[in-house]
């Protein structure tokens, strides 16, 4: 019962988050639609319509009826980078596109100290807001006169700082003095006052919390600007990360995937053929294959680590298992999917059993095997990254895991982008190979 209450609470949290994001999502959709209308207007101006394609309003089911609009793709990608740059203050973008940034520079505010006897005096606090990654001494200020003395503090951007401004005053908090106003506006414990550079808040105990405006931009530690990610990529490609260059990390990951996948295909395809051709083999392996297929390879990581450690052997066993079942099932359905009339035709043309296998069954199964290979490569690539996140000395997964421990968000982002690009390239490569080797796919 407690569980249900907990889960209900979690669900509400999630729904609240979704609710917060909803206006932004709607705005995004509105932008998409707006640009669509704008683009179709532009297109009509450039080239008036002569076909009746626009009358085809229902395009469900027939995927090929909707081709991808290149303009939309380009705008979509550019927009991602513009948003990314705008919210990170990227130097690649002109300044007017930036979201309001955090306050930076020197500012002052006055506070009013009221002594236990009711006497008041004002003093000035100088606040220096500097980039968070450099340490800066508090600026020198003239203490001034009166019972309240001037203060100064250096604060990193996006940060706030507590300052007991009365500590250097003639009468301190311990003597019964209180701060009663900021820049003339009254303040009490728990309250806050807006200043030119941000907010000054007062803790319940009476300490000032100086919070310069953080603006709308993201702190680099949350989201670095694109150029920072790029320069990290350049640096790591040149100098390496943890004793191996970016290419070596990538090479290790790819090596594991390729070797694991090839071993999986090498065993899985003959296994699938045997299952497709012999009821005995099919009966023997069906329970194993059907049970192992739904087990996510990631769930095997702990077991593989226990059995084979975190070295290359363990990783390759894991990827082998990830590819094995997929390839076996692909080969099996490739064999069972052969049209019986093709086999009959081959026999009537004088082919032997072996020739039917060689010239009919195997070529006929290739399209299915390619489909399986695409799926298996995708799964293997995902699995290798996950396995490297858990335990590895090298590899892109390990790279982003270690970087995240040191809050090197730029490296993490770079890693994610590299992982995406490599995964996409692998898929493109297999598709290219597929067009080359099984041009008849889907045309039988």
């Amino acid at each position, binding site marked *: 019962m407690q569980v249900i209450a907990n889960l209900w609470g979690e669900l509400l949290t999630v729904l609240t988050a979704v609710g917060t994001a909803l206006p932004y999502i709607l705005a995004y959709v509105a932008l998409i639609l707006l640009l669509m209308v704008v683009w179709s207007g532009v297109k009509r101006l450039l080239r008036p319509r002569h076909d009746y394609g626009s009358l085809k309003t229902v395009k469900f089911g027939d995927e090929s009826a909707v081709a991808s609009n290149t303009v939309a793709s380009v705008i979509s990608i550019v927009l991602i980078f513009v948003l990314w740059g705008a919210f990170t203050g990227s130097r690649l973008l002109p300044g007017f596109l930036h979201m309001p940034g955090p306050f930076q520079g020197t500012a002052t505010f006055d506070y009013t100290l009221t002594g236990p006897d009711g006497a008041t005096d004002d003093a000035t606090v100088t606040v220096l807001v500097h980039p968070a990654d450099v340490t800066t001494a508090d600026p020198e200020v003239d203490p001034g006169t009166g019972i309240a003395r001037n203060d100064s503090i250096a604060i990193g951007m996006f940060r706030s700082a507590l300052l007991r401004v009365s500590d250097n005053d003639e009468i301190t908090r311990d003597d019964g003095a209180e701060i009663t106003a900021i820049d003339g506006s009254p303040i009490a414990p728990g309250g806050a006052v807006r200043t030119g550079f941000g907010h000054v808040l007062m803790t319940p105990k009476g300490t000032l919390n100086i919070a310069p405006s953080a603006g709308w931009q993201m702190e680099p530690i949350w989201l670095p600007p694109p150029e920072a990610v790029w320069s990290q990529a350049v640096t790591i490609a040149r100098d390496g990360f943890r004793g191996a260059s970016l290419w070596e990390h990538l090479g290790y990951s790819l090596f594991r995937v390729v070797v694991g996948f090839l071993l999986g295909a090498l065993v899985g395809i003959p296994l699938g053929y045997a299952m497709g051709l012999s009821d005995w083999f099919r009966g023997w392996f069906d329970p194993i294959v059907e049970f192992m297929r739904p087990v996510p390879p990631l769930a095997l990581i702990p077991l593989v680590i226990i059995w084979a450690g975190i070295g290359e052997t363990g990783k390759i066993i894991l990827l082998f298992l990830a590819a094995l079942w997929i390839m076996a099932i692909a080969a099996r359905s490739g064999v069972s999917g052969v*049209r019986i*009339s*093709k086999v*009959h*035709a*081959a*026999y*009537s*043309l*004088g*082919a*032997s059993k072996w*020739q039917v296998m060689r*010239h*009919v069954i195997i*070529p*006929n199964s*290739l399209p299915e095997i390619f489909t399986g290979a695409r799926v298996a490569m995708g799964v293997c690539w995902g699995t290798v990254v996950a396995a490297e996140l858990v335990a590895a000395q090298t590899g892109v997964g390990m790279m982003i895991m270690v970087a995240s421990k040191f809050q090197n968000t730029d490296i993490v982002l770079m890693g994610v982008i590299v992982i995406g690009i490599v995964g996409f390239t692998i898929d493109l490569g297999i598709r290219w190979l597929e067009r080359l080797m*099984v*041009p*008849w796919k889907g*045309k*039988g």
Partner: protein
Amino acid sequence: MAGLHIENLSMRFDLPDGGSVQALKDVSIDLKPGELLSVLGPSGCGKTTLLNIVAGFLAPTEGRITLNGSRVTGPGPDRGMVFQQGALFEWMNVRENVGFGPRMKGMKAKPKREIVDHLLDVVGLRDFKEKAVYELSGGMQQRVALARCLANEPDVILMDEPLGALDALTREKMQGLVLKLWKETGKTIVLITHSVEEALLLGERLIVMAPRPGRIHKEYNLPFADMGVGRDLREVKKDPRFAETREEILSMIWNMEEEIMGSAGEPV
């Protein structure tokens, strides 16, 4: 004993639910070399089963088949098959498809090329030699299938609704081609169809089968195939005997269908 002899053939399929279907019962046919037989009958009367047994893909439960004196026990290159569609090998181009049989026999490249070139000329696909089969129209694909079958020099050609998937115009052209090939090659041909006109046009002999169990209902000897060789088939169809036989067979099949569906069977 030259020719194809089908003796007292019966075929019963055991169904997984324990029952069984009598697909053929006591079917006997004797074909002399060079005869052209068409087999007609309502769907499910065992035409495909009959052909599959003759081809050797199925073993009959009773009866036997001999071809030129030797018993048929399995598929072999002496009996060529032409299927309705989808039996070409998409991973081979037209030339490789036609050359498949000779290649399986281990024939040398040069004689094989001569056979392929000649047959592609015969079926009118000389310029499509290097095309992929999925680039061809349905009619052209069936021409390739015919050529592939002939390349193997079979004694008997078995065709299971070879023109069933073609449009009417292409179909008519292909009927002419089948007649031409029959006359030119002198092959024994068994052609299955569910089109009465086609059965009349392409049958020197015509067998009408009845269903449940699949059996021979009536047999005809017809002049139309001989008349049709080298002539416009539409001329043949104008022959009064043609219309007469067609009407007779149509009402015969109509009655069969009625028997199956019961008297409630409405024309669709």
